């Protein structure tokens, strides 16, 4: 790494030594960047003066490929976007396609979709909280505790859909197949045991002085800046803005459930961590209500085998675990979409990375990135 003069070197006192900004490249191969992601940081000593995210290492031409596949064939491709939250991507895409054709899925399918989305939220937040503390240096202990619980949920996914992370479960007009025998009992057992695990996790981490030392006050994101940049999801709510698409948009059958939205106070990393823990508890509430109210019936609406939506466009979005996951589909009347665009929450949340990191130490950049919760499959598509 060579030191070189930066174009925007800070004006300095002529009596001080003439210093340069050190340009340091974090990544793309780095254990803490959650994938192939590169941050080019300009350091003034320990402090970050400028930070530029560089991504695109995982670009797979997802959207262009989507234009050459039929609507049904795109479904397993959406699994690979945010590969941690497979079911959520499927459901968001199905909602977009249903909007395009004006199809309403049956009741049971809606309940199943809600159950899968909330389970996905648990899966994602468990992984995030584990890896945030791993970036802090806690030698994998919280990761393994979180993954122990996550494995139970992934086993449930496997029993329902056949795949753990790449589930290919939602279909246009409903879900692919009904729940197998006995799975609701398993989900209920999991939900009943989960609060105890969350309490133990919070006892381990939430009041840990070292963690608070590292996270409180780092990466503060002001509410106005967040709203202006289009941030969504837990990052936005941690900054104090009460915007949850499940409440604001009321899509699917969410208005029937009674749950609250956790909102943070200052928008630092600690708030982002706390908001996710609280969201997990709220998800448990929704899951209990959904399981209790699960009706009988078909799980797929009557959809023609070769799905040909009318000309037009539609934007379908869900409150995904990372934020607003949206799919914009433009149809020209054929079996393949004319334009297929994904609104990735991770990418949009990343746009403010520099603003959050400037002024902090280099060691904090990794934590701030971890708390935004990115998955490169989604950022690069």
């Amino acid at each position, binding site marked *: 790494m060579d030191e070189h003069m930066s174009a925007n070197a800070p004006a300095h006192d002529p009596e001080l030594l003439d210093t340069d900004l050190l340009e340091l490249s974090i990544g793309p191969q780095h254990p803490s960047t959650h994938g192939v992601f590169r941050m080019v940081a300009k350091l003034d000593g320990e402090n970050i003066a400028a930070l530029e995210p560089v991504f695109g290492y995982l670009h797979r031409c997802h959207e262009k490929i989507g234009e050459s596949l039929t609507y049904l064939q795109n479904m397993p491709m959406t699994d690979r976007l945010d590969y941690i939250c497979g079911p959520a991507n499927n459901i968001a895409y199905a909602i977009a396609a249903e909007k395009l054709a004006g199809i309403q899925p049956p009741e049971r399918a809606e309940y199943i979709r809600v159950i899968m989305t909330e389970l996905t939220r648990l899966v994602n937040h468990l992984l995030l909280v584990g890896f945030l503390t791993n970036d802090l240096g806690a030698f994998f202990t919280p990761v393994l505790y979180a993954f122990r619980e996550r494995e139970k949920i992934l086993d449930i996914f496997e029993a329902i859909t056949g795949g753990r992370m790449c589930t290919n479960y939602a279909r246009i007009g409903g879900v692919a197949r009904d729940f197998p025998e006995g799975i609701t009992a398993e989900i209920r057992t999991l939900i009943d045991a989960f609060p105890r695990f969350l309490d133990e996790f919070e006892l381990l981490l939430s009041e*840990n002085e070292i963690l608070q030392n590292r996270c409180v006050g780092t990466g503060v994101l002001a509410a106005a800046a967040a709203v202006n940049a289009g941030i969504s999801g837990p990052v936005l709510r941690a900054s104090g803005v009460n915007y949850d698409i499940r409440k604001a948009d009321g899509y699917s059958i969410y208005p029937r459930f009674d749950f609250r939205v956790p909102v943070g106070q200052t928008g630092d990393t600690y708030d982002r961590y706390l908001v996710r823990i609280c969201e997990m508890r*709220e998800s448990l509430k929704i899951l209990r209500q959904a399981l209790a109210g699960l009706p009988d019936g078909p799980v797929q609406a009557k959809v023609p085998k070769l799905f040909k939506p009318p000309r037009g466009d539609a934007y379908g979005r869900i409150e995904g675990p990372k934020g607003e996951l949206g799919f914009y589909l433009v149809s020209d009347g054929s079996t393949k979409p004319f334009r297929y665009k994904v609104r990735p929450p991770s990418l949009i949340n990343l746009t403010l990375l520099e603003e959050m990191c400037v002024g902090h130490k280099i060691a904090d950049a990794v934590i701030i990135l971890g708390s935004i919760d990115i998955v490169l499959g989604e950022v690069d598509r």
Partner: protein
Amino acid sequence: MSMDNVWIAIKQAAVGAARDVLYPLLDPVLPAWITPERLMMFASAVISVVSILVIVPLVMMYLTWAERKVVGRMQNRFGPNRVGWFGLLQPIADAVKMLTKEDIVPARGDRFVHLMAPVLILVPTLLVYAVIPFGEGMIAADLDIGVLYFLALSSVTTLAVFMAGWASRNKYSFLGGMRAVAQMVSYEIPLVIAAVVVVMRVGSLSTVAIVEAQAGLFGWFVFQPWGLFAFLIFLAAMTAEANRSPFDLPEGESELVAGFHTEYSGMKFGMFYLAEYFSALAQCFLAATLFFGGWKGPLLPGWIWIFLKTFVLVFVLFLFRGTFPRVRVDQLMGFTWKFLLPLALTTVFVAGLTYYLPPVPGWIVGAVLLTGTFFVLMLPNRRVTLVRRACRLEN
């Protein structure tokens, strides 16, 4: 016949053999200045050295095994259990792996310093085992300045770390090494002051005298308020000295590479790895000697007691590793200079004050003063005290 007696008997036999067998055998070829007494001393020393060099590395090797198993269990998984029964051959597998790696020396680096750094970090950490009393009469060298010798030699590792960072000719290793040196030097001070508390009360730097002064079960210094606080300070400082979690910044994400030992591979890296564990084990032995009464204890022989106490302390180190995230470098410095150092100085003062008071009131006064100082010292460190925050739940 307990082990102490066995060891002393072996020593005496060796000394006797030197005097009665070896000297007459070698008499014709030996120069005049090698008297029988000197040969006996040499034989006695050889026994001590050999026993330390055999037992301590063995203990340390299985300490690495124990760490991986214990930390694994803390994380709800088995540790290594594939290599040999229960993974007991794992340390040997690691040693073989390190020996078979290519030895890379950076091209523009300073070759001599690069070679000397691992040597310099390993030898002093082995030398300090000479002053640890493993039992009654089982000490390699009963120096009058035992504790001073220990602390002085364990400071030499700082120099070795700096040499390693310097010789690598790599900007990031150098910065990582400087940071490691800053950490180790800063944490020397509370470490030494905590040891000084005990030395001051005992009146002697000799480790044997310190153990003798802790007679009876509640005579252990850790049951005194100044002893307890000195032990806690010693524990924190010892963790930082050995570069273990939560203070493992030098080998963690320091400048995003492996810090001062980036450019080391193969057995040289193995030496750094060994030295970290030797040093941690030696400091635990010292803590057991200074604060927990060394080898004193009812029923069981002395050497079992000291090993038990040391292993409990080592288990506490494993628990730290499994639980805590890493402390950032400025917070590390803040912790030692703004919290540990004033607390250590107050402990010295309290230890001195309670010397002049009768036992029970002295205990109470000491406890009150030290607990008060602990809480008062949290005021300048308010940033690090508990932030009780919860999310608002809105509809």
